[in-house]
């Protein structure tokens, strides 16, 4: 355990939960030579099973880079990072893709729903990637769309839905194959306050059942209350991990509205 990890109280969960994600000394640089950008400068972070962890911090602090590394869509330059004990760096491309498809669910800032498919077809994609036949995948997709309150819109195209509804579809897509880890990138930034609140409520309510872990990148302080823990990042490092937004920001909570 590194010194910073020790300071942040990593490695042991007081509630005795198992580790979902373990990062130690994760480094990621973009570019080379004098133009190098040090996006992650030795990140130490643990995410426990059944936990909703929010990654917050000012724009450009490395939040998105960190979840990209955690989700295995970006290679780190140094350090260790394992997801449920599996290290992406020891896997070949095919194994990594398969692991990602099975273990991780994704919720994106701009939903990323394929506009030429119905929402049921969009939701069925992770199941198809896991070898479920089309008919069963569609049936399960329709079921889970019912769970997120869109059971009557299964055959609609995404562009016929509101932003909040589209994000609910994206949540359904992230959950449909029952992944153990869900990574969300700014899930509320394209939504108004009320809709964003409802989406995170849904995310926490539906996704957290089944002992899943959620890592949510956000700078939307209106949803901080949903977090079990909040990791604050600055300049490529996690500088604080706290249990609530008040511990992090105190009375200035509403003034911290930084970007990614």
């Amino acid at each position: 355990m590194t010194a910073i990890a020790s300071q942040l109280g990593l490695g042991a969960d007081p509630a005795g939960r198992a580790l979902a994600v373990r990062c130690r000394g994760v480094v990621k640089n973009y570019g080379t030579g004098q133009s190098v950008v040090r996006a992650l400068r030795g990140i130490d972070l643990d995410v426990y099973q059944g936990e909703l962890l929010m990654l917050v911090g000012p724009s450009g602090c490395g939040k998105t880079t960190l979840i990209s590394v955690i989700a295995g869509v970006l290679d780190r330059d140094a350090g260790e990072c394992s997801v449920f004990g599996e290290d992406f760096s020891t896997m070949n491309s095919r194994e990594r893709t398969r692991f990602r498809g099975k273990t991780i669910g994704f919720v994106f800032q701009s939903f990323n729903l394929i506009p030429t498919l119905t929402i049921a077809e969009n939701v069925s994609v992770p199941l198809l990637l896991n070898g479920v036949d089309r008919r069963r995948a569609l049936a399960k997709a329709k079921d889970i769309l019912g769970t997120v309150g869109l059971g009557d819109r299964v055959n609609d195209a995404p562009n016929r839905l509101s932003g909040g509804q589209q994000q609910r579809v994206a949540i359904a897509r992230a959950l449909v194959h029952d992944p153990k880890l869900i990574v969300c990138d700014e899930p509320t930034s394209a939504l108004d306050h009320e809709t964003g609140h409802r989406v995170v409520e849904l995310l926490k309510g539906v996704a957290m059942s089944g002992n899943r872990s959620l890592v949510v990148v956000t700078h939307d302080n209106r949803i901080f209350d949903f977090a079990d823990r909040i990791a604050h990042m600055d300049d490529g490092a996690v500088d604080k991990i706290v249990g609530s937004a008040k511990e992090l920001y105190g009375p200035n909570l509403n003034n911290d509205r930084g970007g990614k």
Partner: protein
Amino acid sequence: MYFLALKMLFNDKAKFFGIVMGVTLASLVITQQGSIFVGLMARTFGVITDMNYPDIWVMDPKVQFIDDTKPLADTKLFEVRGVPGVASAVPLYKGMIRARTDNGLFQNCNLYGLDDSTLIGGPGEMVEGRLADLRMADSVIVDVEGASDKLAKKNPVPGGPKIPLSIGDTLELNDHRAVVVGISRGSRTFQSQPNVFTTYSRAVTFAPKERKLLSFVLVKAEPGEDLEKLRARITEATGLAAYTSQQFKMLTVNYFLKYTGIPINFGIAVSLGFIIGTLITGFMFYSFTIDNLKYLGTLKAMGTGDTTLMTMILLQALSVGCIGFGIGAGAATVFGMSMSGTQLAFWITWQILALSGGAVVIICMLAAMLSVRKVVALEPAVVFKG
């Protein structure tokens, strides 16, 4: 996933139709121009096709194609008949003759002189009259195209349509009187002149005076005879060239391919169809992929492997290829059918369809390759960049 790949393609209607249009255009141009080219080439040996009697055509060694007749001495006929393995051999005169029509104009015609006793080498189909009527004095048979157009009679009503030649009408062939005893139909030939058939002995009297007038000797081999060996024996015994019908057709086609600008002209048209089709299809397909890059990146992040994505793209490309090819080849076929009975040479063969299909596959592969490169190089982390 592959079903979804097709839905992604089909539901993006503007791009889908654009890509299909590109493939259709290429397929249409390649099939249509290719078929016209094949039709034209087939016309060069139309006479050989219609004369299905001979196993072997014997001619002067310098003959380069069917219309390039170099007269032989009549004695050559007997030399050929004397070659072992020859069951029968008959003479054929083929030459140009000037006909004077009813309205006083002159018209060049192809004159065929058939063996007097057997009439071998006659037209493939009689529309009116009988081939045997050529045994009547001064008789000729005229092909239906010539009879109804270039040799047709003037309408007594000013501005009225020409009146086709019919049985009993007379022609003046090189200052000789000829009586039409039949109207025939045969394969169109490369030349547009009317075809006139008569007996060999009458043809040589119609023809301009030359010392030698025998154009070809048509040989029927004895049953079971090896044609290659027989050809060699004929050449050895007579010093003449001997070809099977198929070889003579190829000799004729090769001459036109080599010494005329026809292949280049059609080659340019076909190449343009290919290039334009590739550019349109490639651009539209690449644009379709770029439009979907965000979603392909999403699929990649969610666990879609490069192989699956490449297969999806290839499937999309081949699907538009099949649809475009079907429409293009179908349109070319309809075009050909609608032009049947006109002067247009059009012969759609399986080889042309295979060529067109192959070209479409190449176009689709080229278009898909551009997109595949982009998708393989795509970092899945791009999906987190908003």
